């Protein structure tokens, strides 16, 4: 579904990513892990069009994504969340998921001014789909919450709303940047299950950056380890976790065999 070949990006003299090879098949859940500064978020920024690679190619469903604006990438069917939650804090929860359907809808000034049937039908559809997406997270984001500003949400719920907003763009590939960061173990266990359901019920293919190894272990089909902008290991969790290179990258600690320090990062 997504093929990345020889992808490199440099910021000045810094190689944020070097000759990266990466592939995702339809219906997979792939985790990208690696120590801080390994280039994980740059990797996401590049797929979503926010950073232009210096070399290499990104092909999604047979077509290259190079040179596209972030909004065009989203239109092709790739949606993302952000590591530091970036909601439209003063818009209501419903509006957050409504605006995310922008590229799937096409009513313009004319429809809005003359309140055409098509306009009204589209508004209804946007609203309905928005509520449907929100109700995926149980009762937390619906009901009286719909019309509350996103800023009143608790931290965990903001993370959930971020995912809901990405879902609302009707993607085929979902990029989740540290979806459970800052959540307590119970919340992250619940979200792990939801990520599984995102694939089984909504049919999304998922690439996720995550530091919480229990989440990575439980949900991913395949793990890719980045260090200094290079892929140092790839494969199923059990294999990667025992890879000496990976262990070395993580300061020589065995990853995942016990609760590691990586989870307690600030």
């Amino acid at each position, binding site marked *: 579904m997504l093929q990345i070949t020889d992808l490199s990006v440099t910021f000045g003299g810094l190689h944020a990513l070097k000759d990266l090879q990466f592939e995702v098949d339809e219906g997979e859940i792939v985790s990208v892990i690696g120590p801080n500064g390994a280039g994980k978020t740059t990797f996401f920024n590049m797929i*979503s069009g*926010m950073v232009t690679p210096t070399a290499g190619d990104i092909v999604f469903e047979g077509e290259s994504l190079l040179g596209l*604006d*972030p*909004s*065009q990438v*989203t*239109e092709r069917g790739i*949606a*993302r969340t*952000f590591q530091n939650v*970036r*909601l*439209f*804090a*003063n*818009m209501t929860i419903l*509006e957050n998921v*409504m*605006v*995310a*359907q*922008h*590229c*799937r*809808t096409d*009513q*313009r*000034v004319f*429809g*809005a*001014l003359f*309140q055409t049937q098509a*306009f009204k039908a*589209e*508004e209804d559809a*946007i609203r309905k789909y928005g509520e449907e997406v929100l109700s995926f997270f*149980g*009762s*937390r984001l619906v009901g009286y*919450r719909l019309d*509350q*500003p996103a*800023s*009143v*949400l*608790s931290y*965990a*719920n903001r993370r959930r709303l971020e995912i809901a*907003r*990405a879902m609302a*763009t009707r993607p085929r590939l979902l990029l989740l940047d540290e979806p459970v960061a800052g959540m307590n173990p*119970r*919340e992250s266990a*619940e979200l792990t299950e939801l990520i599984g359901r995102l694939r089984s019920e909504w049919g999304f293919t998922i690439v996720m950056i995550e530091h919480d190894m229990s989440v990575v272990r439980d949900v991913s089909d395949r793990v890719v380890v980045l260090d200094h902008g290079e892929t140092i290991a790839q494969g199923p969790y059990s294999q990667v976790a025992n890879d000496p290179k990976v262990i070395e990258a993580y300061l020589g600690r065995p990853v995942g065999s016990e609760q590691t320090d990586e989870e307690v990062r600030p």
Partner: protein
Amino acid sequence: MTATSENLSMVETPGVAWRKQIRFALIGALSTAFIALAGMPVGLDGRSIIQPVLSMGFLSLLWVPFVLATIAGSEVVLEGMTARTRDSKDLLAGGIVGLGSAGGLVLLMVLIQNFNLRDPLVNWSPQLLNLLSFNRSLAVGGLLWVLLGLILGVFGGAMHVLPKKLCSRIRTVVLSVFAVSVLETFLTDLLEGFRLEVLTDFVYYKRGGLEVGGALLVAALALLIPLLVGTRIRDVKKQVVDLPAEERKRVNLILLAVSAALLLVLPFFLGKIANELLANVGLFVLLALGLNVVVGLAGILDLGYVAFFAVGGYTTAVLTSPNSPGFSPELPWPIALIVVVVLTGIVGLFIGAPVIRMRGDYLAIVTLGFGEIIRLLFLSDWLSGWFGGAQGITNIPGVDVGIGTVKGTDPRSVFLLVLVFCAIAIYVSWRLENSRLGRAWMAIREDEDVAEAMGVNTTNTKLMAFVVGAVLASFSGAIFSAKVGSIFPTSFLMLVSIIILVVVIVGGMGNIAGVIVGALVLIGVLGGPKQPGLLQEFSQFKLLIYGALLVWMMLKRPEGLVPNVRRTRELHQDEFLQDAWLKGEIDTGDQEELS
């Protein structure tokens, strides 16, 4: 939890903050001296509020001790605390602020008598001294000011001591007398329309200002009307709110229709001056509504908005005037308007395309530049073959609407025309705000990068905001040139952009009602860049007052007079979150749902 909050509520707020009072006394001294040196007492002495007791000139000084003492006496009561009972100490505190304010004036008087600084300070004049000392000796004048300051300061402090109800009564009376006096031109005009000159003759003095009897009448009415109406208005309002959604919608529609009808009938009862005034307000409402789309909704700080007003005005002039120097098709206004709208939209695209790649301060400065460029192009010799350079274009015909012609000499028709276009602009703003495009604008205002990542084509969306804003401004330009009949580059100074922006900010960014209120208050009362307002005497202090108002608004009420719910949230997010938490609305995690 309950136990602690009960304990907390026993805590009283601390007593009078004396340091704060002294600080305000100093601010008062500076303010009065500054106002006196700015020339307000002398310049505004001609306009009386209550003849012969109080003139606007004295009022410009007298409000200081009262208002500052009231502000200095107000205390924030933190949640969980009870306000302390106010006592005579608060009167003393008010007195200190009042004395300070008067002290500034007394000091100024002494200085004026003994030194001559007339050279840098134009208003450092014997005339000012005479006025300030009430044409008596310095000692008497100074003593009077000290007394006045003390009394007004104590009175200001007393606003916190007296029962709340009495205070609000006093405030209503004072404000009504002031408002009736300020609105003189307008009210005389209106009452003349109803053939009620008798009333105005009684209330108003021949050469402006209220008669003492008139002031008393107004005061009595201001006391009586609330007593008679009482809580009835609130009751009716509550009934309406309690109605089911369907019914409420119908009531709102009826209200809207009635107010629209009233507005349409209103011009026929108004005289020339009032109609002219309202037409000017309407032109600025149109401009402000357009800028509101750009700044308030999409968050693009455009400081060169006057460019679109100019393009609208000039295009209309070229297309309709027989005196247009280059190209003179002499089209009828409605047809010209179509061309104007299209052309201004295109200019919006052209200016917008390079500008919207920038953000924040850079964008503001570049738009400022474009605003000037457009004006200088109209002024330039290079294009004077088309636009007449500094001579402008004259002899622009009025708008022929079948039953009559709308032109500047008949302000009533202009007002009606403006009203129609304001209605269109309001409808457009309202519908667009609640549409896919409006949501995209808001998302861009919140976080442009994320909006882009969520599939909003930010370039096109921002351009759309520019174009919509430009088109609304072009309506205003087209009406303006038909109204004035001639058009010059000097009508489109940068000041116009700034004033429109101030209207939007003061009124309430992102809120249609706010923008209208802002235009009524600023343009209607103070006057536009060239248009006189109700307080014509204020024209030389207009910009000073605009500036002071803007600073005060930014500090105390950044969301504007009639705030937009969303903007309020944005600007007071901390307080808002705290309130939500206290009310238990905020979401503190969701353990209960999980367990």
